[in-house]
């Protein structure tokens, strides 16, 4: 009987142990010091050739964000549930990095609902949350580009009614060359690791820009 208890107890500890074990991703800033004028790495999202439109109605490509770290999230402006909180989470990351580094970072929203989110809507969204700095971008594309981009981010979404989408809440951090560095999932998720990496990347960005 005691043996069984012992086994159960150790099993519990092992399980607890694995749960609590943090996934320490080895983050070495030197890995990200890749010259900006060289060919893009194969896994870079900047390889995507799609055209997007920003909140000013201007045509942009993802590659335009090269040279600065990019924090990115997919939302849609008419969303009542998660998107206001995801927007707040983005704003929080922005506020938690040193003021001077904000100019050396891209903060990018990508619309899940490109048919509805016009530049007027996306401008309005940024205004509503007082995201006025030049580091803020809100992109809309075609339905095809949007689906393709979500595939790259591993963001899942489905239209569940004419006005609503069900979607995953993922904020992604990319390095200066568009390689995925870190992702956080969930609302009000712990953003400390993402911020720490962003600050490091921001420093390189500042030197280069």
């Amino acid at each position, binding site marked *: 009987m005691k043996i069984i208890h012992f086994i159960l107890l150790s099993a519990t500890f092992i399980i607890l142990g694995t749960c609590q074990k943090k996934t320490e991703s080895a983050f070495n800033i030197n890995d990200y010091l890749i010259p900006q004028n060289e060919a893009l790495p194969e896994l870079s999202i900047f390889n995507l050739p799609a055209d997007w439109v920003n909140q000013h109605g201007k045509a942009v490509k993802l590659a335009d964000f090269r040279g600065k770290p990019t924090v990115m999230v997919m939302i849609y402006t008419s969303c009542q*549930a998660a998107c206001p909180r995801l927007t707040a989470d983005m704003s929080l990351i922005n506020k938690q990095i040193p003021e001077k580094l904000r100019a050396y970072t891209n903060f990018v929203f990508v619309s899940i609902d490109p048919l509805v989110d016009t530049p007027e809507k996306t401008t309005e969204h940024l205004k509503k949350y007082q995201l006025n700095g030049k580091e803020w971008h809100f992109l809309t594309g075609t339905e095809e580009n949007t689906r393709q981009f979500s*595939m790259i981010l*591993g*963001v899942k979404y489905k239209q569940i009614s004419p006005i609503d989408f*069900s979607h*995953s809440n*993922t904020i992604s951090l990319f390095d200066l060359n568009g390689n995925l560095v870190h992702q956080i999932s*969930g*609302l009000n998720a712990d953003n400390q690791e993402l911020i720490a990496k962003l600050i490091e990347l921001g420093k390189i960005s500042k030197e280069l820009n």
Partner: protein
Amino acid sequence: MSRFLLLILLLVFTQTVRAQKPMARIEGGAFAPLFGTTNQLVTVASFFMDETPVTHAEFLDFVKTYPEWRRSTVLRLFADQNYLKTWESDTTLGKNLNPNAPITNVSWFAASAYAKSVGKRLPTTDEWEFVAMASRDNKDARKDSLFNVSILSWYETPNTFTQSIRRTEPNFWGVFDLYGLVWEWTEDFNSVLLTGESRGDVDSNNTLFCGGGAVGASDLMNYAAFMRFAFKGSLKAHFAVQNLGFRCVKSEKES
């Protein structure tokens, strides 16, 4: 000069071989899919679907025309290291491959690019499921236990992906091989919110979890569809999987 003409003719010919793959017309309708908007009918507009999955031979023709989709040149962003790995080289299948078997080891990105190259697209999950609920004689055979048993028995049969297309009998719509050979990519396969991180999803679909899931499903008989959704939920768009292929569709209004 004649050689040049021949080349042009050859190009035109190969293009049409790929583009003129026979399609079946699917009369649109409403149906209750397995999950999602619980008990709500989803409407599918009329469309055309390839009668068969895209084959190795057809995909070979595609990569010959579009070098960026060859095994040695494709970006890792778009396809993992298993992409076209059973082929002998970039542009040869090799003797051991059946050219009329469905193409597999292709990523979602590659499948989408192929579809675009022939003026088609990948089916939505709703479209695919709509067609796949038909048996030989019925548009909706999901309550037919024999139909379900035959699907599940395929799911248990290994290595069916090496067999030629049109192996099975056509269904009600004249579509072949939806079951029996390979699994197929759909345009929005990632709309299934069944992730390792479902906790991160705002409104994750609780009906999809095992046990409880079956009780909440619109159709209790449809265990086979659960397997499809679970499989698709585990995929990422750059994965190239040994038993996963695709076929294309076209909206009716475009053609």
